């Protein structure tokens, strides 16, 4: 690409803008900026309500504050994985295969994995505070860990290489297979754990009773994390588009170079 001297502010190439332009971000639009601001506001509210305004739980003391983060991350993780499955189906089962669905599936899965990891960490810390154990082998936790590993596998499948269409087809098939696996695993783990009805120290199924301000804080958490999820997916799939484009451009210019080389060689 030739280096032309242009006025930095008018340069249509995004990476070179100066001043406020640099902060504008390649993948930003008016909508995404609005969404981002709403997200930040929501998260600030969450921190305030979660850490300061909401009262201590009678039974569980302060540890319930962790739930204001843990439950939203879990919710987002499940939402993300569900959306990946949905997008995989949208890609696979339409006549005209649109790579946009594949990108959304990939973006959503990546964010889902991150939030699932956070869910496992915050959950372990909460469990340690409340029940004295970091982990318990019950159906819900085990399925959660399983989901985590499965979607790490999904991300690995996406990186197997090949054309964008090949990646899309492979990933979408795997994504749907994952949806098939999950009920099977959950069901078998459920049956398995029901064999072990001994009283355990930790009863992870004992749900916390919340009301009033506590419930509101949780609500704030879920809403703001949902906004955060959409904002992240929006940007991530745009970046995926850029990455694909970058990869293609690389290939194209490499091919063009080779072609001109061989031209020169045959002419020279």
């Amino acid at each position, binding site marked *: *690409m030739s280096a032309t001297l242009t006025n930095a502010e008018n340069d*249509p*190439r*995004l*990476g*070179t803008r100066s001043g406020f332009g640099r902060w504008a*971000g*390649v*993948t930003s*639009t008016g909508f995404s900026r609005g969404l981002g601001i709403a997200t930040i506001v929501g*998260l600030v509210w969450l*921190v305030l309500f*979660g*850490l300061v305004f909401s009262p201590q739980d009678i039974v569980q*003391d*302060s*540890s319930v*504050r*962790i739930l204001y*983060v*843990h439950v939203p*991350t879990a919710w987002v993780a499940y939402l993300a994985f569900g959306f990946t499955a949905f997008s995989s189906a949208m890609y696979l089962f339409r006549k005209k295969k649109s790579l946009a669905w594949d990108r959304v599936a990939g973006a959503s899965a990546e*964010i889902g994995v*991150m939030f699932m*990891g*956070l869910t496992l*960490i*915050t959950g372990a*810390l*909460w469990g*340690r*505070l409340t029940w004295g154990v970091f982990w318990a082998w019950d159906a819900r936790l085990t399925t959660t860990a399983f989901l985590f590993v499965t979607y790490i596998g999904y991300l690995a499948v996406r990186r197997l290489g090949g054309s964008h269409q090949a990646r899309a087809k492979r990933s979408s098939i795997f994504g749907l297979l994952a949806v098939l696996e999950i009920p099977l695993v959950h069901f078998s783990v459920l049956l398995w754990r029901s064999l072990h009805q001994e009283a355990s120290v930790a009863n992870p199924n004992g749900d916390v009773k919340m009301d009033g301000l506590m419930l509101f804080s949780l609500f704030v958490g879920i809403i703001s994390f949902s906004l*955060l999820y959409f904002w*992240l997916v929006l*940007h*991530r799939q*745009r*970046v995926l*588009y*850029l*990455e694909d*484009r*970058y990869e293609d*451009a690389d290939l194209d210019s490499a091919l063009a170079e080779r072609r001109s080389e061989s031209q020169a060689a045959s002419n020279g």
Partner: protein
Amino acid sequence: MDDAGFIFACYGITLAAVLLYASALFRRARRTGRSAKREDLPWT
């Protein structure tokens, strides 16, 4: 580590992770979108 430590760890880890991810994302956007013209992009 007492209760408060655990709680702040949770909030901290979560927010830090999100911030790190977002900044890495934007860095990558700048890098791969360097030569892109605004009109070419489907979201503008």
